[in-house]
């Protein structure tokens, strides 16, 4: 049985102009020990998914429909009290260190001990501090830096400390939201290796959210490509990156520059972002798509199975037409 199974999830933000459908009717699942990546541009709803899974949606947002089944519990029906006991213990989140995710006036070890203490109230002080030391050695922060304040850490160390925080209670699922954005590539590489190593060692599942295709391709075996609140294509990393089928996935991959394709850079043009308030039916990518089909604008596309693991949200004949070109 899958560790996490999300079915037909829709999340909306109330705004003055109306409900913004940030996440629309998405389904995915993840097995224990696997890693799933979400890629897409800013505003496609990837962070909203992460926040929904943590129960950390802002006040004006709510789950409109759908189920989130984690280990037999439906998270969509959790109340505040249940969430509090759940967060940080069963599912935890790796935040972006560059964004001040560590409290500047509390020592780093205290910020990590806090998580352990709250979820294991019976644990003695010395046990907690031993546990903190263990986690620090796991993320390779020297022990004499334990009592430091966050501002004494470098960017990479801060990110390690945040990873340590997410690991503190050995959660079954970790959500990493842009964990390496704003780090230089060398540190980024170290952090990604760290995440992969830990995932293997603890057999944790990881949901990786990023706009950086290279990062997601590095860490994740399964990929979901998102556009305008929809998952538009999902499959294994090889399927999605080697043989992308959905027009948006192609656009996204085409916008990624590589050295050998330097000569014929053909960055596709994205003309407008979909209006998530008024758009109800139709394909959300239709305004930017090259297919120019009338059908796309009025009829909602359906999942086309391309292999047992590879699917795209489009019209079958359009996908095939595209192939023949």
């Amino acid at each position: 049985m899958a560790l996490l199974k999300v079915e037909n999830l829709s999340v909306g933000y109330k705004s003055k102009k109306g409900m913004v459908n940030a996440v629309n009717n998405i389904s995915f699942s993840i097995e224990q020990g696997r890693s799933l990546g979400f890629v897409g541009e800013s505003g496609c709803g990837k962070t909203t998914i992460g926040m929904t899974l943590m129960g950390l949606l802002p006040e004006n947002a709510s789950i409109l429909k759908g189920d989130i089944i984690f280990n037999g519990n439906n998270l969509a029906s959790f109340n505040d009290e249940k969430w509090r006991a759940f967060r940080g213990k069963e599912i935890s989140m790796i935040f972006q260190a560059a964004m001040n995710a560590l409290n500047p006036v509390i020592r780093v070890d205290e910020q990590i001990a806090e998580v352990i203490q709250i979820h294991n109230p019976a644990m003695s002080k010395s046990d907690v501090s031993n546990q903190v030391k263990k986690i620090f050695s796991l993320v390779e922060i020297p022990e004499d830096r334990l009592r430091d304040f966050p501002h004494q850490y470098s960017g990479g160390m801060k990110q390690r400390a945040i990873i340590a925080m997410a690991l503190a209670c050995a959660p079954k699922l970790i959500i990493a939201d842009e964990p390496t954005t704003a780090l230089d590539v060398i540190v980024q590489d170290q952090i990604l290796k760290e995440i992969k190593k830990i995932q293997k060692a603890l057999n944790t599942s990881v949901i990786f959210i990023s706009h950086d295709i290279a990062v997601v391709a590095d860490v994740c075996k399964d990929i979901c490509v998102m556009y305008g609140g929809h998952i538009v294509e999902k499959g294994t990393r090889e399927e999605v990156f080697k043989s992308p089928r959905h027009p948006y996935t192609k656009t996204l991959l085409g916008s990624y520059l590589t050295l050998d394709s330097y000569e014929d850079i053909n960055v596709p043009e994205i003309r407008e972002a979909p209006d998530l308030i008024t758009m109800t039916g139709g394909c959300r990518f239709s305004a930017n798509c090259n297919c120019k089909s009338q059908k796309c604008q009025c009829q909602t596309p359906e999942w086309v199975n391309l292999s047992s693991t590879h699917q795209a949200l489009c019209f079958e004949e359009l996908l095939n037409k595209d192939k023949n070109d």
Partner: protein
Amino acid sequence: MKTKKIIFNKLIEITILFFIILTVLFFLFRAAPGDPVSRMVDPTLTPEDIQLLIAQMGLDEPAWKQYIIYIKNFFSGNLGHSFHYGEPVSNIILDRMPCTILLFTTSTLLAAFAGVFLGKIAAWKKGSAIDNVLSIGALLCHTLFIPWFALLVLWAFAYKLGWFPLGGIISPELWINDTSFFIKMLDVLHHMFLPLLTLFFIHLGSYLLLMRSSMLGVLKEEYIITARAKGLSDKVIRNKHAARNAALPVITSVGLSLAFSINGGALTEQIFTWPGIGRELIFAVSNNDYPLAQACFLLITAVVLIANLIVDLLYAYMDPRISY
């Protein structure tokens, strides 16, 4: 060790500043219009008597000589004699200062604690009925016209209802008779209540609003989401993760207002006839009582400088990112 060195350096800085201000004050007073002798309106005084008086006050010397004498005296602990009272200025200051410190420290600290506490709650429940009541109340407190409010309080609670004395710090009969310390203390508290209440409300508003806005800023920070993601309770997030960061601007404000309380509170002292420095200052300035006025201003200078030092040190303690 490091802290000691910081304090030592700061103290040197403060001393230099103090003497600069002392010099400026000295010449400012001499440059001000009016002279102390003209205040003593007595038709029997002959020009010779006036000359004698001026010589007695040391005002016949040129200003720079007076300054040297003043500095010499200052180092021997002699601040001069008050022209009006004829007493050593240090005696007058020492007599009035405890009253002022008692009243203003108590009211400022009480108001700061209450402001931080209420501001924290208002920010946490932003937009709720509690927040509206607190914010509007704080705004009212903040904009109160001090003399009007003080007189209103005095009129209502002391004159109409008669619950509290009209002024002073202690009932004279208790002072003369042999009463226990406890009873005297209660009597002082009884006298202090109304001025304390006035100052409390005047300060409360600004602290509350400051804490509220600071807290609202902190609650938007990323680390508050991190704290929630850990599964911490609302109370821990509010008090440990948010309030400590948010209270920093309030500390600065407390330091500053402690410093300005001595002169700023002069109106309150005047209305409640509280025998403090503020009243003495108004009196000394309007009577050209140079030594007394100068000493009052020097005292304010010292309090401002020391309060700033304490704020700096407290800041470094509260916020580890700050080091000197």
